[in-house]
């Protein structure tokens, strides 16, 4: 039956059961991600973000919640232009992290 509206599926993440191996590996090789303040400067300047949903801030959030596949899918849009790295107020080498996620 179509009511013209519906309930959105639950976005509940069980943190006890998610697989955080990628994120933990990333934290080891790129300790600077710990300093991210999620300000979103990277997302605001993203060249690919102008055309798609690409957002590094969200990628990091997805990884923290174990949503690795979604994160990897988003990374595919990246053009590696490096603007995110340049504007990051914490000096995080974002381009390197993006490349390391898939490595």
């Amino acid at each position, binding site marked *: 039956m179509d009511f013209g509206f519906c309930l959105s599926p639950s976005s509940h993440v069980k943190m006890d059961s998610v697989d955080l191996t990628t994120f933990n590996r990333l934290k080891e090789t790129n300790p600077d991600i710990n300093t991210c303040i999620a300000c979103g400067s990277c997302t605001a300047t993203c060249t690919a973000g102008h055309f798609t949903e690409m957002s590094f801030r969200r990628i990091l959030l997805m990884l923290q919640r174990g949503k690795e596949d979604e994160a990897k899918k988003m990374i595919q849009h990246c053009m590696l232009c490096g*603007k995110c790295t340049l504007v990051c107020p914490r000096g995080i080498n974002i381009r390197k992290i993006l490349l390391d996620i898939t490595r």
Partner: protein
Amino acid sequence: MNSQIFHPFVLPFVLGMAFVLTYCVVGLLRVIGQLPKDDRKKFWRSLVTPKTAWANVRDLVGDCLFHVKIWKRNPVLGYMHTAIAFGWFMIIVIGHVMLFTLKPLEGIELQGVERTLPNFYYPIFFKYFAEETLIFAILMDFFLLMIISGILIAVVKKIHSKIVGVKRIMHFGFADNLIRFALWTIFPFRLIAEKTNIMAFWWLYSIDLMVFMFMLPFTRYMHIPTEALFILLRHAGLKPREPRKGYALAQIYSCPSCGLCIDACPMSVNDKNSGNTSAYFMKRLRNGDREEAQRIAETCMQCGKCVAVCPVSIESCDIKMSQREAVPYTINSDHSYLGNVEPETKGNAKVLYFAGCMTQLTPKIMRAMKQIMEAAGEKYAFLDKDGGVCCGRPMLLSGKTAEAQAMMAKNTELIKQSGAKRLVLSCPICYKVFKEEYQLEGIEILHHTQYIDELIKRGKLKVDKNDVNYVYHDPCELGRAFGVYDEPREVIENIGHLRKAKSEKELSTCCGGSLGSFILTQQERDEITTNSVNDLIFNNPDEIVTACPLCLKTFARKSPVAVKDIAEVVANQLK
């Protein structure tokens, strides 16, 4: 006088010589065999084309014999290398000349020397077998002493390199140290053997030669025979395709590990990073240490200063790029969205302005360019006013050529749709890739420094001169890559006074922001930036002017004086 034609002490030398000659012939065939077919054709053709053949002769004499490039870089090192290499070459040549001309010229009976016997060890051990005439004896002693003077400088350089003007020298392993020791002792042994005729020294001299020749293919001294081949290949206009094959292999073996690039490399401000310089990269590749080579290739900022100072002209940046291509990042790109990008401008604009990603971050440059183009009355249009497609160079730098080509195709399509005949760029990073990779027949590609210079020269743009002292920073991808040194300087002369930086033009130091490096951390980049800024403010300028949005942004973080783009400065001085 020893009237004999053979003595067993020549055997070590003969063995060594036979080994090294065999190795070189095999190596030569291997390099040529590994060249792709069209490259090989190019190579053969270059050998008979008068222009490249002349360049070959010029560089073979200038670089291999007289080491002109080292003299230019550092006269003390130039003398050191020429004394040893040219001196050695001369005593071999004079040895042969003596063998063949002594008898008819002087009419002296040579004891035991049968001119019919092609004993090629005679010139090397001449004094043991025959007597020299005075003039040749003086010449031989002169060159031998010249070599020894060169070795003395080399010893000083090893102990305290700063005396000869070198801050950092290469650190070598056991093999390189051993062969160097052999090289240093060959000539003193020869001198003692010749003057005293003690058998032990003749043996030592010969064994030293053997050690040198047996180790030569496995150490940096392989550059002696390989450089000649490399010069021929370079003039054929080849590009390294694979990091350790064909042309690249010739380059790897031509690297003398002199370490001049270590001091030049902007990363060397941090001693920890001086191991990431080109000299070490080439050494890693030669030793087959692919993992380290890959890491260094990805750390490199691709500023090209090592290539500019290299006395052998090794194109280490290109080899690093081929190394990156060989092991590309496994990011599984999906740029299908590019198909939906619509052109922002369709019309009859004559000049198309492409700001590029970096200029999007520095909108003041875009505003200044707009002001300038309007003041000059140009019919212009923006290609990426609200953000466009990346030029593709960063993707190329990551070694993912196919993905980069997709972006380039999209941009080419957008540019062609605009119908403009001139394309003006603000970002040297874009400029490099547009110049080198894009197929834009009939469209003139200009960087805004060239464009503004032209507008001023044609009288379309009127500017006021003020009293500010500027210093100009040459962006790597504009200066070293395309030699755009004069246009920006002429523009600045029109609007103010130009002061010199400590190192300029082809020796200008990278700002540290380079997109070329994937690995350098922010802290490491900051150290490079501080060092580069100090170079620029050497003569106390009031403002730093640059022509690259990335340099501008990078310098602004660390500079004690104002940093501006050349377009901004010009826009402020418009009449």
